[in-house]
């Protein structure tokens, strides 16, 4: 069990800057009512951020301009079908993991 002081400071600094954007909206929104247009804007956030995170999973960051992880993209297709078909979070996750493992094993 060792604890390096400079690493502890980095962890604390990172914790503070992570905490602030998480908590500030919860304090501010109690005070002010949000304008209609902001509420509308916020209603698009879930769909946009989920899509962005999915795309992020099949982009490989390397030296080239853009490279795609085709195996992840290939696993996304059956997983998406299962998600639409079952509408179940747990079934989708399990099938997704099995698809990904199979694709990585075969290719």
């Amino acid at each position, binding site marked *: 069990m060792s604890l390096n002081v400079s690493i502890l400071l980095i962890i604390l600094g990172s914790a503070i800057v992570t905490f602030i954007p998480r908590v500030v909206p919860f304090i501010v929104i109690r005070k002010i009512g949000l304008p209609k247009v902001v509420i509308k804007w916020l209603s698009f956030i879930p*769909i946009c951020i989920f899509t962005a995170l999915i795309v992020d999973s099949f982009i490989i960051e390397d030296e080239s301009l853009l490279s795609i992880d085709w195996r992840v993209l290939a696993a996304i297709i059956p997983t998406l079908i299962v998600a639409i078909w079952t*509408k179940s979070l747990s079934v989708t*996750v399990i099938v997704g993991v099995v698809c990904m493992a199979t694709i990585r094993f075969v290719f």
Partner: protein
Amino acid sequence: MNQLANEITFEKNLPSFSQGVKDCVPTLIGYISIGIAMGIVGAASNLSILEVALLSILVYAGAAQFIICALLVSGSPFSVIVFTTFIVNLRHFLLSMTIAPSFKNYSLLKNFGIGTLLTDESFGVAANKIAKKEMINASWMNGLNLTAYFFWILSCTLGAVFGKWISNPEVLGLDFSLTAMFLALLVLQLESMKRSKLKFYLLLITYVVLSMLVLCMFMPSYIAILLSTIIVATIGVVKDK
């Protein structure tokens, strides 16, 4: 008597702490597998078990923890690591802003607690419940958040302890559990939309995909995620009358 029975059923329908714990279960595969991977990476980045545990207790953000490890290995200074963490986790601002109005009637302390432990996953589960017009409350949200928090700390620490013996978890496809979960959350969001709006939302999804692919050519993906979301949500407001 009848009224009492009604009240009891009403109580049962209120989302409770234990219902929150149950609703967290489908996301746990993601937390556990990514957490273990995080612990392994932490140990491989020369962090002690205690440091990995502190990282997951205090920072509690998957992507950021991986990036912190990578930056530590590259010998980046304090300022760079903290600033990068800030940018990577700035998307929580969007998540918190979306979910905070549901809790504005609770005390400041409860709001602090909910905000501190909000993650992509717990946000997703809550946003789905809101989209389905189901009730959410603070105890339900705490059940969801605390279960995730507990399993995350446990998995990261176990990953750090057993890191030397576990081979690359990618081989098992477990890292894909996060993507699979976001796919299901996306489908569930669309499911709760009015049919007439579906085409519009599919168009927005296409814009996000295109925006991500283009932006990722010029910037790190965590900035592209933030920008794509902000740009396309704005397009959504402008185009939707």
